[in-house]
């Protein structure tokens, strides 16, 4: 494929900020500027979103041959489609003739796509198979094989479809680097895994994707304050203090991180229905069962911008409640601006009442109108506005929490597990990883 490569280089100013981060972040300092800056945004488009495995869709969103959804990687519109053989593929949603948008509906089913400008027609594998008046206007000269839809690499893990724009990137398996062990808690609640409930919530907000991704990488620190209403109305059984118990785990050099919050005395696998608890004994390893059965809150970020939260919640405070899982993509659409995608995922094998109740818990707590989500977005949009000011951009934030903590050598999972639940070890690894990507030409 003939492409013209134009790679953006950072200005000397941004380069020196990024270089400074190499030593600064492990010592507990992160520049405020990274959280809302036009140049940082532009550079991220190529150096982060052009290289990392970016979440596209859950396999259950395209279960049948021909099913497709439209998603994004950076500012590229991507068709994620299951071809007629059942293989998941991704293509740039751009007609190769003059660049028209091929699919305009955000979901649909098609074996072939026909462009609405001049009618070039592609198989859902991306192959160009039809060109109107090929004999008459091209005199059969145009080689259809040269003009397939631009393919995007896809790989999946337990139902999650990721795409990568970099042909030289390592495999998804290597990229996740052991984080799969933790993702299994969300993705393997039974032999048939998970499915999305309905269609994702979508909304836009003036916030930087990184502050959201950081929050879900284990910011248990904000909960008692930002979500204080939850304690006040009785949504959290624990006091603010016991909320800090648990462990935070990160995968060094990869950026992925999870916070596992525990409540002392919580019954094992509290809030899951018995069917799912039983199934998890089969699908998870004994070590995973030992760890996850104790977990109240599991909140993680798959670097760069996919986050997942698993939480027990009852719509009416004080009632037993259920677990809900929300998966969210903080998709950057401009400096300090995101389009938010938020899914609720449920165990495929769970009884319908549990799926429904789990979804209701999700909508009350998360999504555009979710009571917890509302306050997070309030704080995130405000801080994003603040950090772009001329004074703020030269400041650094302290990331020192937990600098002296030691990893737990007995913890059975991969990565570095540092108790308790609340500290900033995960974030230091995340922003070091980010700086490493941003410095690579």
């Amino acid at each position: 494929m003939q492409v013209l490569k134009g790679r953006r280089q950072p200005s000397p100013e941004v380069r020196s900020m990024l270089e400074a981060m190499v030593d600064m972040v492990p010592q507990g300092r992160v520049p405020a500027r990274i959280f809302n800056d036009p140049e940082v945004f532009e550079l991220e488009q190529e150096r982060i979103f052009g290289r990392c495995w970016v979440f596209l869709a859950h396999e259950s969103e395209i279960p049948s041959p021909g099913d497709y959804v439209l998603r994004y990687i950076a500012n590229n519109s991507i068709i994620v489609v299951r071809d007629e053989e059942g293989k998941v593929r991704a293509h740039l949603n751009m007609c190769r003739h003059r660049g028209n948008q091929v699919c305009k509906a955000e979901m649909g089913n098609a074996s072939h796509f026909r462009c609405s400008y001049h009618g070039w027609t592609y198989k859902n594998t991306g192959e160009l198979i039809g060109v109107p008046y090929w004999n008459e206007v091209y005199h059969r000269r145009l080689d259809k094989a040269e003009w397939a839809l631009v393919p995007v690499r896809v790989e999946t893990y337990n139902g999650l479809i990721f795409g990568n724009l970099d042909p030289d990137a390592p495999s998804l398996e290597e990229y996740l680097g052991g984080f799969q062990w933790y993702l299994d808690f969300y993705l393997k609640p039974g032999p048939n895994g998970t499915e999305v409930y309905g269609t994702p919530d979508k909304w836009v907000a003036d916030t930087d994707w990184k502050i959201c991704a950081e929050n879900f990488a284990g910011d248990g620190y904000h909960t008692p304050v930002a979500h204080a209403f939850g304690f006040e109305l009785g949504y959290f059984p624990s006091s603010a203090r016991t909320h800090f118990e648990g462990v935070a785990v990160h995968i060094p050099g990869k950026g992925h991180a999870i916070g596992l919050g525990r409540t002392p005395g919580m019954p094992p696998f509290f809030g899951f229905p018995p069917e799912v608890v039983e199934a998890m004994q089969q699908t998870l390893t004994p070590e995973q069962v030992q760890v996850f059965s104790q977990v109240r809150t599991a909140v993680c970020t798959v670097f760069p911008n996919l986050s997942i939260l698993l939480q027990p919640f009852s719509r009416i405070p004080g009632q037993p409640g259920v677990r809900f899982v929300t998966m969210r993509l903080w998709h950057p659409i401009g400096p300090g601006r995101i389009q938010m995608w938020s899914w609720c995922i449920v165990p495929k094998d769970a009884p319908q009442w549990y799926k429904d109740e789990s979804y209701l818990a999700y909508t009350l707590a998360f999504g555009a109108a979710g009571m917890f989500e509302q306050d997070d977005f309030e704080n995130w949009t405000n801080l994003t506005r603040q950090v772009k000011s001329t004074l703020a951009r030269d400041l650094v934030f302290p990331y020192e929490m937990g600098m002296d903590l030691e990893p737990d050598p007995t913890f059975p999972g991969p990565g570095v597990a540092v108790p308790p639940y609340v500290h900033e070890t995960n974030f230091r690894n995340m922003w070091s990883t980010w700086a490493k990507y941003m410095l690579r030409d």
Partner: protein
Amino acid sequence: MGDRQDGTRAGRNSQDEFVIANEFATVIVRKVHTRNGVRLEIASPKLGHSIRLDPLELESLTWQTTETFSRFLETPFGPGS
């Protein structure tokens, strides 16, 4: 409450006639009863083509692969296009 009266063809479905559409094409499919039998009519209101297939023709479609249709679509708007 909330039924859509949006005037789209999706509302035209009935027992013997229904619409199959995606963002690339819309066809009306219906059973056509002849004096002695039945055919399936597939019509494209956009392009003005239609075909009436009998059960044997329809059955023969069941062993086609996508390649057959990709070949049909080499002229994406019908013969001569």
